[in-house]
């Protein structure tokens, strides 16, 4: 698998973009896979009773899917050295229409000596960003 060449990258380059359609099924699947069975992620009545605008996607689901375009760009999940996000807005998943989450990954910083780049993610739902300071440090050296 070819590795992106650090010498060919410039700060500001968009290296990956993706749109993901979430449905209630996606939330149930993530609940089972992660073990997070908080009912605000699948029961409308519970979400409403605690004052939420609807059933929400798990923050960790949004974090988990948002890094995938970067993993595919880098060619190996093992190239991710560090990944952080702040959860700023919820993703409300409609029972019928679901929710569309869009991801854009941009080069934020290049460290040629360490052979790493910082990729900044813009993750949006309903035209507002849902993650703040979403940064992935990726190792682009030939050998891991």
């Amino acid at each position, binding site marked *: 698998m070819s590795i992106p060449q650090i010498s060919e990258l410039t700060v500001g380059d968009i290296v990956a973009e993706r749109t993901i359609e979430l449905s209630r099924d996606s939330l149930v699947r993530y609940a089972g896979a992660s073990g997070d069975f908080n009912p605000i992620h699948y029961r409308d009545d519970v979400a409403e009773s605690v004052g939420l605008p609807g059933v929400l996607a798990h923050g960790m689901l949004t974090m988990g899917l948002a890094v995938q375009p970067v993993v595919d760009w880098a060619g*190996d999940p093992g190239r991710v050295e560090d*990944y*952080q996000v702040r959860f700023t807005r919820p993703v409300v998943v409609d029972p019928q229409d679901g929710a569309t989450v869009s991801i854009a990954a941009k080069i934020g910083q290049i460290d040629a000596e360490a052979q790493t780049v910082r990729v900044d993610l813009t993750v949006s739902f309903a035209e507002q960003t849902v993650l703040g300071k979403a940064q992935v440090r990726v190792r682009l050296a030939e050998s891991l």
Partner: protein
Amino acid sequence: MGREKVREFSRAVFAQSPLNHDPEAAVAAGYADVVAPPTFAVVVQEHALAELLALPDTGIDFSRVVHGDQRFSFTRPIVAGDLLTATLTVTSVKTLGAHSMVTAESRIVDASGDHVVTAISTLVVRGDE
């Protein structure tokens, strides 16, 4: 960490890399088995956090907990077959008005005791409005 758990989690986070799903592709890339997506460490951390929240003297009401931020710092990725141990440390507790912010750090090591990943979570515990 079972292989099917890694694959199930990979599907759940829309991971498409063959290294997450196909043991042959993972071996060809130099791994012992399928590689977990970066946020898979949350499955390990979740157990440690659940223990913390279940302690009677923390006084934390789970229904009032909101995830504030999350970070993973890796020495290497988690691979199916890993036997992992997490040690959770509460590194900071701050009060902001009625709310509390608890930062917990889970240091995750493998069977040899070597560092794999550290997961850092800040939980916001909402107080009475």
